[in-house]
């Protein structure tokens, strides 16, 4: 009987101290709409084909005692599809998913390789994201590179409305922005250079 009681106690302790809270970060337009441009005059002369990522859940425990009990199940495939196509739709009229490599126009094959994040005290997070991007123009490879983006948010409560902000909305928004920053800052710079000079960036 004692053995059974000890067994139950061990099980309860295990559940309390192990990562037993699963969080599925949301993917939604709201998290990037302030950072994507609308009403630009778009390019109609070229087509962008975006290799569609399959749904891929990458589960991670955050660093930092505060969030240790949580497991984040991030769908990095859907996130990359959404953010990547949102980036190109700012500039091009014709952006579509593809399952095969295309030899005409711009063809993008990319995926989120990894992410790491830390929850600090208060409302503060540090997020690091790694994205691999291959880009082709008319069948020729112009980019084949790993990009790293960091997005840190240290927020303190203002005198205004507290709002719905919590650690996980901060994380979700930071994750969207970190991936978007790869496309709009690092990748864009390389892509424009490669298109102008015809020299591939690796």
């Amino acid at each position: 009987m004692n053995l059974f009681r000890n067994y139950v106690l061990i099980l309860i302790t295990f559940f309390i101290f192990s990562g037993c809270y699963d969080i599925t970060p949301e993917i939604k337009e709201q998290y990037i709409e302030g950072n994507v441009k609308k009403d630009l005059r778009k390019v109609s002369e070229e087509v962008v084909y975006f290799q569609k990522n399959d749904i891929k859940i990458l589960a991670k425990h955050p660093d930092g005692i505060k969030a240790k009990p949580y497991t984040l199940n991030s769908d990095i495939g859907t996130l990359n599809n959404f953010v990547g196509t949102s980036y190109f739709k700012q500039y091009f009229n014709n952006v579509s998913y593809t399952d095969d490599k295309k030899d005409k126009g711009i063809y993008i094959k990319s995926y989120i390789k990894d992410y790491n994040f830390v929850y600090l005290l208060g409302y503060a997070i540090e997020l690091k994201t790694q994205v691999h991007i291959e880009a082709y123009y008319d069948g020729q490879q112009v980019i084949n590179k790993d990009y790293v983006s960091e997005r840190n948010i240290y927020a303190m409560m203002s005198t205004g409305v507290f709002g719905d902000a919590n650690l996980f909305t901060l994380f979700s928004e930071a994750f969207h922005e970190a991936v978007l920053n790869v496309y709009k800052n690092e990748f864009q710079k390389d892509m424009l250079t490669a298109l102008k000079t015809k020299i591939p960036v690796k």
Partner: protein
Amino acid sequence: MIKKILTIGLLSSFLFGENISLTGETLSQLGNPYKIIFGEKNKIIKVYSDKKEIKLKVNSNFNGQKEEFVLENESVISVMKQFYGEEYKVIVDNKSDISLNILSGEVSLDYTDLDNNIQTLREIVVSLNIEMNINGNKINKKITLDNTLGDKNNSDYQGFITNEDIMNLKIMSVKENVIRIIERELFNIMKETR
């Protein structure tokens, strides 16, 4: 003696007017850089801005801030080149299709006491009176914009001051922030009237 002259020079450069020249760099991040590569440009547009200096008075709730910025109005041409360059071949000409001039304006700086009596710049607002002439049609407009540039209104942490709010507004970068805001204001009016 030399020390006195240097001190007075340093103080006057800090407290009084500082020249502002626009470059159009903000617009390169706002426009469509792919359009410049892929878009065809067969049309020509002539643009112009008057050569004059505009004093922008600074209103601040923190003593020791500059009293005014002096804007080189002619540098508005750089902003127009960047904006219309996506679609047209841009030529600077007095007999222009489009002229854009800043007539007057002011800058408001709002400091807040966040911690231990350290004054932290919280907000910059720039108001401008602008005159635009498009093929003989004159438009006068007053525009006002703050350092958020009208972006990121949908954040889930709207009720917070974040590290970025403060980092983007360091005292040393007031001038850069003012340039960024003015270029965005000009971009907005050119977009409206395109």
